[in-house]
């Protein structure tokens, strides 16, 4: 498990991180969500040791993460980068060796990743001659080539086409579920985070505002909302029920908020009397809604 404990960091007078703490457990995908400049990249850089924290600690498997432990982490920075004129295979071998893999093993893994990630290039091609999509795959291969024990990825999905998104999502899920690797990645694509991740950490202006399993976060914020669509009903058909208020009107149907122990089944009964019920469901807040709510609070 990766534990970030009380990380703080300033840049000059600007406080980039203030007491950031969260965990990434083994085998889980953690989404790291926040607006631009909220401190995601700084947190990740500190995790990898690229940047030093002014306070706080990064712990790995219960021990302070030292250079030896960090050498086995895998990292994909937000600013993608490889040596443009170095040959692809040679480059992957070099990066694997920097992470402590011996030469023969590094070569074998580089070749293997070429196949599993379906990189459409010759091993001797220079990186700059590859298409953007292939460069992205090689970038991913660079993060995976030393079979990291932890994966930290900064905006890994940005700039990928839908197929690329699926390939990457599959790879990350396999790393977490099959190899038990803790995976943390940042993303602005909240639907994607919602779909892939077990947990989410929400950061704003250097503070962690919310964190935990997505379902729990939802439940904690769940209001008693119903979305109902009834064919041919009056506009305010629900007004007769006590404790039921209009939360918002939709293009088709309404979202109602139930308070003071108003009964869901009585609402349904009334709706059925009004006409044909086309839709009736409890409304769960999406991650985007949660995000907006938390950030605005």
């Amino acid at each position, binding site marked *: 498990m990766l534990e970030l404990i009380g990380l703080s960091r300033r840049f000059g007078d600007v406080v980039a991180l203030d007491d950031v703490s969260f965990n990434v457990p083994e085998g889980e995908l953690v989404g790291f969500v926040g607006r631009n400049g909220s401190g995601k990249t700084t947190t990740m*850089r500190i995790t990898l040791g*690229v940047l030093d924290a002014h306070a706080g600690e990064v712990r790995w498997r219960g021990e302070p993460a030292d250079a030896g432990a960090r050498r086995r982490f895998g990292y994909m*920075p937000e*600013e993608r980068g490889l040596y443009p004129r*170095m040959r692809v295979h040679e480059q992957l071998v070099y990066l694997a060796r920097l992470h402590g893999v011996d030469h023969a093993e590094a070569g074998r893994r580089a070749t293997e990743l070429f196949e599993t990630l379906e990189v459409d290039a010759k091993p001797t091609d220079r990186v700059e001659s590859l298409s953007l999509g292939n460069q992205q795959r090689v970038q991913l291969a660079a993060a995976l080539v030393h079979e990291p024990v932890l994966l930290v990825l900064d905006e890994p999905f940005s700039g990928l086409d839908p197929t690329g998104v699926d390939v990457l999502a599959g790879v990350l899920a396999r790393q977490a579920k099959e190899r038990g690797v803790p995976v943390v990645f940042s993303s602005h694509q909240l639907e994607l985070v919602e779909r892939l991740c077990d947990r989410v950490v929400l950061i704003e202006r250097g503070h962690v505002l919310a964190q935990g399993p997505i379902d729990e976060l939802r439940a904690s914020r769940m209001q008693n909302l119903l979305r109902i669509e009834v064919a041919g009903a009056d506009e305010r058909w629900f007004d007769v029920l006590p404790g039921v208020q209009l939360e918002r009107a939709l293009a088709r149907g309404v979202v109602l908020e139930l308070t003071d122990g108003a009964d869901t089944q009585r609402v349904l009964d009334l709706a059925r009397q009004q006409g044909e019920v086309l839709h009736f469901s409890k409304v769960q807040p999406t991650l985007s809604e949660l995000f907006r709510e938390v950030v605005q609070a």
Partner: protein
Amino acid sequence: MNRGIWRLVARRDFWVRIRERSFVISTLINLAVISTIIMIRAVGGGGDGEASYRIGVVSDGGDEDRIAALADVVPGVRARVLSFSGEDAARAAVAAGHVDGALIDQSLVVDEVAPAQLVQLAQLAVAAEQQDVILDRYQVTSQDRDVLRSGPRLKVESLQPGDPNRSQNEAIAFVGMILLYGQLFGYGVWVASGVLEEKSSRVVEILLAAMRARQLMAGKIVGIGLLGLAQLVFIGGFAIALALVTGAIDLPGSAASIALLDVGYFVLAFAFYASLFAVAGALVSRMEELQNVLVPVNLVIIVSFFISISALSNPDSPLVRVASILPTSSALAMPVRIVVGVALWWEVALSVVLSIASTLLLIPLAGRAYAGAVLRTGGRVKLREAWRAHA
């Protein structure tokens, strides 16, 4: 645990660059320039400072024998005599440059200006002809004549005997200095652009996730420095071999020791300058900006180079003495002073100690500035910002 990681960096920088076209081209250019200098010297006739002249004479005038006999009487002159069938042929040979001068009827015919030693030789030859006439009159035996001609030689005693090999050693030191200047400059810029390449391609962030900034900087400097050293040794070895084969120099021992001196000072100077070049490369984000940040470093090297050139003619001037001790310029100025024999032992020792000490002092400072600057993409980073960023 990963303390030796800089070696991987050094190995990559060495092997990637040795295959680059720019490396091959720079090696070839160096070889071409050095070969040209050596060939010019070889054709210009030996390295021992002895003048050699080709003198034309009209055959059966007797001058032939006289000049040949006199040639070794004039110190430092070697003469080759070429006979021509007549006066016109001899004059034509002078005009065409086949001979340096022709002795015709007691006059020396030259194309433009007569070298003093040639005049001296011709004067002796003409005088000998006169003497022969008189000696014939008194029927002096040929034995007595020989005594007269090759008899007691003038000895030259110098109060401050100079090194007879000085001019040749100076020439070797000069070539060595030019090579060293080129290596320092070229490989320094390679360090800077190598750092910039990693920064602008953003690969540096992946690298820094595997090692500390200081390890990356050290590896790069060592890798590129070793390549520069290998090239220097290769070119130096080639130059000495070519010079010996063509006869441009005839002192293999001193050439080799001058080469070793240059190699040693290259290591010292490169270690000193390379971390400055690395910081310069880390301060900018684009190739176009690199030239600007390099100006101060380049300026120091160029000034050192010109001071060192003046060391050839004036190796003991105060400026040259100071320059040969300071770590910024000792690599260029000191070998020349050592070669011409004016460097005092404590000056040499001091230059080495200062060079090592200042390098050891500079590396952590440069390492911090480098670490503070290398992740800041965008515009140009000010040195002060880079310094503070790491705190």
